[in-house]
């Protein structure tokens, strides 16, 4: 440690910092910024991999074939929703009962602090309907959630249909170890928060709701599904949650793995990933994806209904079906197979997801940047402050000595 214990060296160093203070600050700022912009390029990114052993090794054949049933449920749901003008509670209850689930409903209401723009109302009233598939020979200690928001108009009808078809398929299987809760929530985020608060029996946002009757133990993971068309061209995943919290990276990797297995096109931030990694346009594309994710995290707004689960230590993602002007379309059967595969893998979990990263940035679905790699960018910016204050003791010493001399003289 000759550098710090040698008084000559120390003085030389501090004089250097003092003399070159501004250039050094500018340099470290630019280094931090450059590091951040370089995060999207190949040297900084790693290929995604499954960290959790329980989710890696099983290769099962998905057998979901109820695509037609999903479409017919979707039509019925759309018709009843139009007739009732909101969530068709009675029809949902009866349909879920006939599928063999335990059905419960939860009415809730909330007075908004500001009136809602579209309808100029203060009071929001709604009902959540959920059915629980009880796993055979399990004591209801753990569960998974598949939630579908019930939106106004023509949105998300096919999502409800697919959920009901999946419920009817799951009901006949013997391999479930965790209960599965199929939830249809009204008013998107308000309904979701009302359901979560009633389930955990807390009062965070002062939503008034009747108590929850049906429970299924501790929720391990959740998937929120949004689908507004009969066929899709790609599946989009949204990860950013409330206050920028992110789910475990393993859940995103799970989604990507199953999309690849079933040949489904998957996107993130609405952007398809490119296969060429070394060209400039690819780099710009990755950087755009990364910056979009940073912006969305920074806004603090949850990008889907899944964002509200993260506070309760439940890993969740939102999967959206996008129907754009592409040639090749995927039908309900393929979507159902992907979701079935995801749920079967989640069923295999022995522990809560904890092996993979909780803080990451995604320049694309196949690559990620972990916190250990993007932190130096922040470090570069903080170094500016450190450089600014580090010669202060030296300066103080000089002022004191000069002051003394002046005082003496």
């Amino acid at each position, binding site marked *: *440690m000759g550098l*710090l214990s040698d008084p000559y060296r120390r003085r030389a160093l501090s004089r250097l910092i003092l003399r070159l203070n501004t250039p050094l600050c500018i340099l470290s700022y630019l280094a931090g910024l450059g590091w951040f912009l370089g995060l999207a390029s190949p040297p900084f990114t790693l290929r995604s991999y499954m960290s959790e052993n329980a989710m890696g090794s099983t290769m099962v054949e998905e057998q979901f074939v109820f695509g037609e049933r999903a479409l017919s449920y979707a039509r019925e749901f759309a018709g009843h929703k139009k007739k009732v003008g909101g969530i068709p509670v009675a029809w949902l209850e009866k349909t879920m009962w006939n599928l063999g689930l335990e059905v419960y409903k939860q009415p809730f209401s909330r007075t908004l602090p500001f009136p809602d723009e579209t309808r100029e109302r203060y009071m929001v009233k709604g009902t959540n309907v959920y059915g629980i598939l*009880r796993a*055979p020979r399990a004591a*209801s200690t*753990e569960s998974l959630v598949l939630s579908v928001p019930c939106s106004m108009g023509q949105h998300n009808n096919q999502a409800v249909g697919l959920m009901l078809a999946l419920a009817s398929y799951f009901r006949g299987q013997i391999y479930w170890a965790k209960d599965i809760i199929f939830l249809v929530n009204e008013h998107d985020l308000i309904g979701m928060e009302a359901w979560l608060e009633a389930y*955990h029996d*807390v009062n965070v946002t002062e939503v008034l709701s009747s108590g929850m009757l049906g429970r299924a133990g*501790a929720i391990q993971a959740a998937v929120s599904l949004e689908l507004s068309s009969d066929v899709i061209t790609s599946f989009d995943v949204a990860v950013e949650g409330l206050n920028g919290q992110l789910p475990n990276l393993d859940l995103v990797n799970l989604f990507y793995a199953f999309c690849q297995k079933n040949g489904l096109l998957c996107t993130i931030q609405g952007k398809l990933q490119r296969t060429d990694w070394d060209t400039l346009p690819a780099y710009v594309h990755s950087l755009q994806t990364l910056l979009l994710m940073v912006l969305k995290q920074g806004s603090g707004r949850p990008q889907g209904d899944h964002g509200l689960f993260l506070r309760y230590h439940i890993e969740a993602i939102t999967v959206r079906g996008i129907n754009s002007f592409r040639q090749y379309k995927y039908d309900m059967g393929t979507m159902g197979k992907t979701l079935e595969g995801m749920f079967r893998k989640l069923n295999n979990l022995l522990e*809560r997801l904890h092996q993979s990263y909780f803080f990451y940035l995604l320049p694309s679905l196949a690559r990620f940047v972990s916190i250990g790699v993007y932190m130096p960018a922040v470090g570069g910016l903080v170094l500016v402050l450190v450089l600014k204050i580090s010669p202060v003791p030296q300066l103080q010493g000089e002022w004191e000595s000069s002051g003394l001399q002046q005082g003496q003289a």
Partner: protein
Amino acid sequence: MAGAAGVLGLLLLLLLGSLGGCGGSTAPPRDSLREELLLSPLPSGDLAATFQFRARWDSELHREGGGPLTLLPAVSHYRLFPKALGQLLSKYLVRELHLSLTQGFWRTRTWGQPYLQAPAGAELWVWFQDSVTDVDKAWKELSNILSGIFCASLNFIDSTNTVTPTASFKPLGLANVTDYHLLRYAVLPREVVCTENLTPWKKLLPCGSKAGLAVLLKAERLFHTSYHSQAVHIRPICRDASCLSVSWELRQTLTVVFDTFSIGQGKRDWSLFKMFSRTVTEACPLASESKIYVDISSKTQENELLEVTPPPLSVHEASVQGDRRTYAVYDLLSPFLFNVSRSLNVQLKWKRPQDSLDLSTPVLHAQRYVSGYGLQTGEISTLIYNTHPYRAFPVILLETVPWYLRLYVHTLVITTKGKENKPSYIHYQPAKDRRRPHLLEMLIQLPANSVTKITIQFERALLKWTEYTPDPNHGFYVSPSVLSALVPSVIAMKAEDAEQSPLFTSLFPSSDGSSYFVRLYTEPLLVNLPTPDFSMPYNVICLTCTVVAVCYGSFYNLLTRTFHVEEPNRGGLAKRLANIIRKVRGVPPL
């Protein structure tokens, strides 16, 4: 002379032989076996099958040297009673033993009140005789031996999960002294039941699984069910109504619930062959009674809702759990049963589909869950529902919470219909870290048609890093809590003779006809404790070594380095070169 003596001897022998034979035929049988299968359709459409095998062993009372009256099996001649359990009773001076292994959870709200309920996992509770000197030692040895007999991990029962309840578990058999210090209770919620546990259980049956009702117990179909519970209950009972002598009773019960939705593809019809892939061909030759009961109460209520084939030879009416119920009886020992076909395959067909959403809820049911989120605090909430329209009754709640969830009893709140409800009896034993769990027993009055909510807050402890299991993020289990109540019944039930009535009505002693005893268990809970990052010990070692090496070196330097003045001297070429290198390095020259 010899011929006459020989004839006399033969006559004597014959006489003695006949006397002996007469004596043998007039002596009462020492033990008896009854077997029974009860098939009851549940309100949600599933089917519950309850097997009960009862062996009654007429042993003698035994007085140990003038001391207190001790019940001991007198001799070691075992016929129907299994020797493994009989030896246990005499060695550890056990008065009552109840062991159950369950996988699944009995959903009281949709399935109705169970005849015999058991908590998820393994449960063992034992009443010892009062002549036992060290109850804890006997308990530990007994649980280890049972673990070997039943191939279950009961050896994990130790002081951290054993409690001594004061009011919840009264003896089910004869008892004159009930000092609760002789009782031990433990639950292992993480245990599973598999074929390894079923096989030793079946081996205790006198006929094994070769004859009688036990042929239906094939593991492949039994483990395709929604709920599986097998239990062993040993207790002393009165031999007859006058209760002059005492017998030992061993009941082996097995309850399974078949999910008719997935088996029958939507239709709720069932048959013995569809469920068990076997039919019954004969009764167990050692059994004195062998019957199958099918609950056909729905048939008489509304006109012809269901149909049972083959038509039963007799119908039995009983008031069970406050309800009038009708049972179709198939007596396997009656000669008329196997007239038509060699095997008996009971079938039930529903004529009309059941109404969907109006299930009759049972009078008492409960639910338990963890409120709150985060890894620091939480709250255990129990909801108890009393759906009786006008009668209130008390219930005893027993909660056993492991020591690493530190309960704060001052936060215990019991509310009914918005008002505070004070329990009339509370027994609380706080936990000792790593020694014993929390025990909370309360007697709570439930008003009619109400929901009672009991909440208690806890804090999650940080365990020592060697105490974590290999899967700490799975969570830690909290045993199910026990609710014991005397539920008032709608109709008056008359007390029936234990020997004549079916087995499923006589497990719990009923004192009067106006109420029946119910024991309910709530769900086990899974709670996450704060877990450290287990790679940290390596990181800490690296960091500590680096800091020690670097800091220690420089500090030593600072403290002990002295400076000397050196005269500059001009040396040879080598010295000059060395000085140049030294100047570059910044070290004072030679």
